[in-house]
């Protein structure tokens, strides 16, 4: 075995892709090592969907649609919004724990972007869990609200893209919050507030049900693009509105990536890792 020369290997896009895709593959394999772990989440999700389907059934019984949502649309809305709100909710804990425990110090001794690597590692298992939630949601939705309101491949693709962007945005926002652990010992309150905003602004009820002022304020933040966008794409499909919604999601994702990178580079300098 010969000693390698110093510095990084020459730039290769394929090698970079392989680096993060391998992390995603291992993250997924690690998740599959304990397949049963998803059972609790699946059960909770099904319970939420059941409860909300009963609520919307009662609300819309004998009543006209509200803001364009009838019973079926409202149920399908909740099913998709909850996949993002509940299925993509685990990033904060993982990254925050790495910072608080000092494990991040050891993860930094590798030639990769920490944020990118953590994302790759987390996205595999997250998408696996989300797929199972989606499957369960599809079955329950079909039972409580009739057939899945998919009108063609364009809508299906838009829904998939929107959910993927929502996952990325969730990861980046939660990671930026988790990285505040570089400054404050106990930062879980930030996440608690964030979660409540996500629930109120587009998860529990469609965003359109909120007063105009609240809607306008919500759209100044990235929160509606986490749950409202994918849920609306399935429940009230509009081929004209979808590209704009996806572009807005992408823009917020890029902005969140920049924020996350900034928080990480500022926080890294504050890292304390004493002892062996």
């Amino acid at each position, binding site marked *: 075995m010969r*000693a390698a020369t110093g510095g990084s290997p020459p730039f290769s896009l394929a090698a970079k892709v392989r680096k993060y895709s391998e*992390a995603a593959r291992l993250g997924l394999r690690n998740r599959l090592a304990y397949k049963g772990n998803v059972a609790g989440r699946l059960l909770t999700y099904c319970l939420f969907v059941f409860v909300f389907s009963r609520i919307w059934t009662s609300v819309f019984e004998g009543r006209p649609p509200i803001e364009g949502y009838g019973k079926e649309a409202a149920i399908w809305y909740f099913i998709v919004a909850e996949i993002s709100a509940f299925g993509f909710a685990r990033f904060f804990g993982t990254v925050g724990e790495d910072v608080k425990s000092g494990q991040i110090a050891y993860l930094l*001794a590798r*030639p990769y972007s920490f944020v990118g690597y953590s994302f790759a590692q987390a996205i595999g298992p997250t998408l696996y869990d989300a797929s199972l939630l989606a499957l369960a949601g599809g079955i329950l939705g079909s039972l409580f609200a009739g057939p899945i309101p998919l009108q063609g491949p364009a809508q299906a693709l838009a829904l998939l893209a929107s959910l993927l962007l929502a996952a990325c945005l969730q990861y980046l926002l939660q990671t930026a919050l988790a990285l505040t652990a570089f400054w404050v010992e106990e930062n879980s309150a930030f996440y608690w507030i964030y979660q409540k905003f996500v629930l109120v602004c587009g998860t529990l009820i469609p965003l359109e049900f909120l007063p105009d002022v609240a809607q306008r304020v919500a759209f100044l933040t990235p929160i509606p693009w986490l749950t409202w966008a994918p849920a609306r794409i399935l429940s009230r499909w509009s081929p004209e509105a979808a590209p704009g919604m996806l572009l807005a999601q992408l823009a917020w994702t890029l902005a969140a990536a920049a924020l996350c990178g900034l928080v990480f580079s500022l926080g890294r300098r504050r*890292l*304390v890792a004493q*002892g*062996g």
Partner: protein
Amino acid sequence: MPVIEVRGLEKTFTLKTKPEGLAASLRSLVRPLRREVRAVRGVDFEVEEGEVVAFLGPNGAGKSTTIKMLCGILEPSGGRATVLGLDPSRQRTRLAASIGAVFGQKSQLWFHLPPSDSFSLLGAIYEIPRPELARRRAELVERFSIGPYMDTPVRKLSLGERVRCEVAASLLHAPRLLFLDEPTIGLDVVAKREIRLLLEELRKRDGVTIFLTSHDIGDIEKICKRAIIIHHGQVVVDESMKELKHRALAKKRLAVKYAGPVDFASLAAPGLTILKSTADAASLEVDTRLHRLPELIRALVDRGEVLDITVEDEPLEDLIAEVFEGEDAEAARAGAAPEALPADDSRGEAAAGARP
């Protein structure tokens, strides 16, 4: 050109302190108490390519903090470090591609997956082309004899098996420089010996520079050619193992056993310490600069019928402990006792985290 060049390297941490009692807790909400801890204070040394250096010191001496600065994990508060011609804190990612690091108390292998998966991931992380990765992997598997464990989840491996896999994994990208922080911690004697042999072979065959911290004197004696001793964040000894051992030779341990009772008390003199004694046996420590060994042995033989007598060098471990104690005593004499360092190396991750 040195592989590692360190000049006046410093690291100061600001830590929040929490005094006892509810009143103090309430006060700290308004005005939190902080104190500065100078973990590393102006360290200087160089390491040449192919050297195997032991970086020693008691708990809290600043060893791990120094290593973390050399790996680019921590930013120095002062001074500078150059590793393989790169600035670790500014060129962390580039440097990471050329160094290997094993932190004995932290695993780089995925706990629930077999080592083969972690090897694939590390190959991808270090951007090793697949055919080369397969070749290196096969070579390391053979050299470290880890073939039987490659497909067993890491959680089911013994500590010795896991450490072998850890060290092999850290060599996958053929690093020029290997940082080993307590690599044999918790291993049994057989596993320790195996790891030491592998490291020795690595040095001889591949010329890899090894920078090792360990509390295990066996690691140091068997593997290292040079020792840097750090205490209270400062380098107090930087010399070859030969020189260090030569210091140890200044003191000898004698054990003597007689056929009957003998008076040992009258033997005690400056430079001659009775470590322990019974009626017919004693263990002595002799400073050979003050006492000639043949004369002492003659004096012992004259005292009675000797059944057995052995002469040994002072253990290196004791010598290093004396260096630490000497430094503490000197600091106390100078009236400048170093501030207590809060971090105990053995606490590891408990002391790690973000600065509040």
